């Protein structure tokens, strides 16, 4: 389940959008014990000024991103806009049965987008 994407990067400033990954939908619900799914989210949106600057309390803006947004404002053809990408991620843990009948708890880094930023 995902928040409807906004056409390309034309609408809305760069931010995290909701994306829920359901293990049942992926067909793994028989061997994944928990969780049933997780909010992975994704980044989308425009990185023109002022979005290229960081949101209050968000990840710090990269100077280079601000520079690119400035250049694009001054000469759109000279360089493209910065990209809207994950700036802060969180881990998840998954409990499942493996092929040897073991019950396994695995910890995975960088599975959930908490914050997006322009880079």
């Amino acid at each position, binding site marked *: 389940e995902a928040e409807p994407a906004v056409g390309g990067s034309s609408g809305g400033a760069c931010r995290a959008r909701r994306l829920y990954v359901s293990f*049942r*939908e*992926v*067909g*793994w619900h*028989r*061997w994944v*014990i*928990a*969780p049933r799914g997780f909010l992975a989210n994704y980044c989308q949106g425009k990185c023109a000024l002022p979005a290229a600057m960081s949101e209050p309390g968000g990840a*710090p803006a990269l100077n280079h991103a601000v520079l690119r947004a400035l250049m694009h404002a001054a000469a759109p053809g000279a360089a493209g806009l910065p990209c809207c990408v994950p700036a*802060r*991620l*969180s*881990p*998840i*843990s*998954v*409990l*499942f*049965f*493996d*092929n*040897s*009948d*073991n*019950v*396994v*708890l*695995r*910890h*995975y*880094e*960088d599975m959930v987008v*908490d*914050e997006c930023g322009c880079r």
Partner: protein
Amino acid sequence: PVPPGPAAAALLQALGLPDAPRDAPTSRPVPPVMWRLFRRRDHQEARAGPRRTPPGANLRPCHVEGLGVPGNIVRHVPDRGAAARPPEPSSAAGQCPEWTVVFDLSAVEPAERPSQARLELRFAAAEATAGGWELSVAPAGASPGPVLLRQAVPTLGTPVRAELLGAAWARNASTPRSLRLTLALRPRAPAYCARLSEASLLLVTLDPRLCHPLTRPRR
């Protein structure tokens, strides 16, 4: 369900799984210790959400909080020898039986470094005895090997736990593909023998390939 294709295969690979396990074994309940570890981790991860993380605080990514050891994979391995063990009559002290337990560790990859291997035993039909019991663990095989571990067991009311890492195999050695052990539990004073009702191994490993350095704290 998504038909197995390159996308599902890529996701499985990203999760460090060679292929999608087949359906869950019907008769295998999830051990309470695994639920506890999952809920403890899941609870922390929920608390570490973007809105509630105190500045600078980070979950230790390669550490099993509930067990206090480094690791990012915890496996609860059942005893494969249980099915082959004949039923035992309870017998007097001095003639207590020995049990062979077998743990299949072939799912552990060579890159994974073990940080804990906890044997967990549950006994039945045992009466309390003065002085308690003594557990001995030796490698199983045609000729009895040296005793790897001796441990005093004051009571059988709670599961008996013994740490095998450093005893059954060296700490810095890679995990064996299979672990076959002979166990014996002898009462210190004349008493009826106990009966082994369940054996399992809780193995914690650290896969450095999935272990990222802590994210840089915010300036």
